[in-house]
């Protein structure tokens, strides 16, 4: 990498930490512990976003990954079981398939992609150079989200709206006292 030694060390340390925490999340039997370690994993991912010069995404990841996602998981676990039940049976054919896929993916990104630090996209340069003239906003990411690619964000809002409607439909008799229908 073409960066300074401090950046490289910190960045690689957090990359390795994220993989370690992901393995811990997957292998913990106690689901409450797993949810809290997942919150810490989200914080590590947020630091990685910040080191990759994306403060916008880092802020989103902190708020979502540490706050909202952990809260939703803990509420769901408090309504269900705390400890994973059943045996630790493994389907070896599936494990071999995933291992093969991982090897293919790793060799693809290692040898077929340009080096880290050399961006592949070219359309971003237009947004960076013209955001002040076209939109007048200082935040190029916010300008892309709400002006250049507004239709994407409209679809995103639609998906969020529909997801909450799904949650409401699933619990249509749960809200309110007793068996009375939903208020």
């Amino acid at each position, binding site marked *: 990498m073409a960066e300074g030694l401090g950046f490289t060390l910190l960045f690689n340390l957090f990359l390795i930490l994220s*993989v370690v925490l992901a393995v811990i999340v997957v292998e913990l039997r106690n689901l409450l512990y797993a949810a809290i370690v997942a919150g810490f994993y989200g914080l590590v991912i947020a630091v990685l976003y910040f080191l990759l010069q994306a403060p916008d995404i880092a802020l989103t990841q902190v708020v979502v990954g540490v706050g909202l996602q952990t809260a939703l998981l803990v509420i769901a676990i408090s309504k269900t079981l705390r400890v994973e039940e059943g045996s630790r049976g493994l389907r070896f054919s599936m494990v071999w398939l995933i291992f093969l896929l991982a090897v293919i993916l790793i060799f693809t990104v290692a040898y077929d992609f340009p080096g880290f630090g050399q961006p592949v996209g070219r359309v971003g340069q237009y947004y960076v150079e013209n955001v002040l003239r076209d939109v007048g906003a*200082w935040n190029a990411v916010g300008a*892309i989200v709400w002006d250049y*690619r507004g239709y994407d964000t409209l679809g995103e809002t639609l998906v969020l709206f529909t997801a909450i409607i799904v949650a409401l439909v699933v619990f249509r008799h749960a809200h309110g006292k007793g068996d009375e229908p939903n208020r």
Partner: protein
Amino acid sequence: MSFEANFPYIVCMLLVSIGLYCILCKKNLIKIILGFIILSDGVNLFFIALGYKAHGIPPILHEETFQHGLEYFYRAAVDPLPQAFVLTAIVISMGVVTAALALAVKIYQLYGTLETTKIRRLKH
């Protein structure tokens, strides 16, 4: 390119593989949702890493940027397009996680278990 130069990409693919393993091999529904979170984080991190430029600065203007001159900003700012996409993707994955958790809690109420192998008969 080599393994050392593209180490961040390899880590992203490892996260994707771990998430896929969790989704396909674990039997607990909450664990499957955690695997989905890990997988989507790996993909998002891969997108952000693809847009990174060596010695880059954030694609956000600032008073200090004007002091350095706009030419420096044009040359050094990282790609903002993957960041906008990832912002959308994070929102969508959060909505999907909310809906999936609601479904998991409802399944536990109906069947009394969260194991995918034990949910057999159809009710309601």
